[in-house]
């Protein structure tokens, strides 16, 4: 695909560059991250770090205030104190405090419930918006969706790009929508822009959409909604991480990254952390710049943390289902 000229607010044009992505090289490099061996103390550090980066998510039609309340409780205190006590008693020493997750991510209708429980805590409240997951609503209604979410207490907005426009080649519309949402977010909310990589078909388009979103003001770029047939993979995340690196070198602005959907195990999470470290460096290895959009991942992280302390493999039944 060719580079594109985009009109920016206030007049003038910018170029969204096109650099073809080496598909074979990307796949090979992404696969190489699955071969690292992270053990003992390093593994424990990685597990704690990954846990602190989780955007604990529930995005189901069946979400209820009760489920969201439970999720907020788990976000604030992922491991029940009784379990911590049990481990400490067993190993005869204190364990490092288990941190809260980075954020809770819900549908707009559940923001009010989540806000009650998260206000005044370190856990951010993210809401999907702009007619998530399809983005198939008129632009004014999408913006209204964002305004309401922020008014209700969302501190982070996860918007979807207009894939219809993107795939038709109408990049200006995609850009304008992100700019408009960013204007509403202003300083009140962080903006994460979801590319839905599973629908973009090629690495070239993923890289192009990443750059377009970052130019439009995205604070984070995010792989997927979790609702498509293909969600986050190491390879498409790698393409986005490299776009972030190049954007930083070119524009001098750091942008965060959030792979979402399909990251279910601690082992996968650690592979992502290795990839971030080797692509972007340590500056991005904080919850401020890297997040996992996940739900079941949290239980596996807790299981593995307990395994590291006790030497025993733990059972899912020791943790809440959601």
């Amino acid at each position, binding site marked *: 695909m060719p580079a594109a000229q985009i009109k920016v607010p206030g007049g003038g044009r910018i170029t969204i560059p096109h650099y073809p992505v080496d598909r074979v090289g990307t796949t090979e490099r992404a696969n190489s991250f699955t071969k690292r061996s992270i053990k003992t103390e390093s593994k424990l550090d990685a597990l704690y770090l990954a846990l602190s980066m989780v955007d604990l998510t529930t995005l189901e039609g069946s979400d209820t205030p009760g489920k969201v309340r439970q999720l907020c409780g788990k976000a604030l205190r992922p491991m029940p104190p009784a379990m911590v006590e049990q481990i400490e008693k067993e190993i005869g020493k204190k364990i490092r405090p288990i941190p809260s997750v980075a954020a809770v991510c819900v549908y707009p209708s559940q923001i009010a419930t989540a806000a009650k429980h998260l206000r005044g805590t370190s856990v951010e409240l993210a809401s999907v918006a702009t007619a998530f997951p399809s983005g198939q609503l008129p632009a004014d209604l999408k913006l209204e969706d964002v305004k309401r979410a922020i008014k209700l207490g969302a501190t982070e907005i996860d918007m979807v790009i207009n894939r219809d426009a993107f795939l038709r080649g109408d990049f200006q519309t995609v850009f304008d929508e992100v700019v408009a949402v960013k204007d509403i977010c202003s300083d009140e909310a962080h903006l994460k822009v979801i590319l839905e990589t599973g629908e973009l078909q090629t690495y070239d388009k993923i890289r192009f959409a990443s750059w377009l979103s970052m130019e439009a003001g995205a604070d984070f770029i995010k792989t997927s909604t979790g609702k498509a047939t293909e969600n986050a993979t190491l390879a498409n995340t790698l393409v986005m991480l490299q776009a972030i690196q190049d954007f930083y070198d070119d524009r001098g602005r750091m942008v965060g990254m959030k792979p979402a959907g399909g990251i279910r195990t601690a082992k996968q999470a650690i592979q992502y952390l290795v990839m971030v470290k080797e692509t972007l460096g340590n500056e991005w290895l904080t919850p401020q710049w890297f997040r996992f959009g996940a739900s079941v991942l949290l239980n596996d992280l807790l299981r593995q943390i307990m395994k590291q302390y006790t*030497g*025993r*493999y*733990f*059972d*899912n039944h*020791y943790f809440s289902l959601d």
Partner: protein
Amino acid sequence: MKVLKTIKLFIGGEFPRSESGRSFPINFHDSEKIYANIAQASRKDLRAAVEAAEVGQKSWGFMTAYNRAQILYRMAEMAEGKRHEFVGLLKDTLGISDKEANKQVDEAIDAFIYYAGFADKFQQMSAAVNPVAGPHHSFTTPDPVGIVALICESHFDFGRLVSNIASVSASGNSLVVVLGPECPAILQPLAEVFATSDLPKGAINLLTGHLKELYPHIGSHMEIRSVSCQNEDTEILYEIKKLGTSNMKRVVPRYENVDSLKAITDFVEFKTVWHPIGT
């Protein structure tokens, strides 16, 4: 050209090598000639098998008992189709006679059929409607315990092995079986029977390797709810029991044949339900 067999593990309906890459050779009986290379399971293979068993149990345990019976019967049919392979393998690796090998295979096939028949009947023999003083119906019914690890005896007997697997499996438990040192090569044809009988993936997993390396992790794994231990080493049994206290694991030493109903009910939990009598 004759190709030497490499016998792999059976985890989640697939045949992976050990993640450790290790294997060990076994010989023809009383010979220096190598019969096959056998995968040597590591603790991580055990972990993978337990994870597969967790998935498998969700399908297997929630099937109707009648359906489980059909699948166990299908295993008998598939085992019958592999009779010559089983007999040849037992003769080659154990050095037993044709007659003895056929007898063991007969017993194994009979065990599949026997527990196929029992799979939807043991509930009626072990459940109860309890006499209670009050306006309630009170029922007690058996539920599978979940994931059971089966540690095979060091003296191999095919009929007993299948009998133990089928009895634990019939109630809806999923299994992680650690085969003994005498005939680990049985894994291959036996796994092929399981893989071609409509058994849900992960409901039965077979591992080969060194028990001394694996048993501490069997004892301490919180997801394994029960252990059927045929190994005669009392030290291993003691250690598994000790480690198993962490999740109140039910450890059942099984050195001798037991009554078939007991063979099943040793690996079930009895659930009692109180239901108010309506008007």
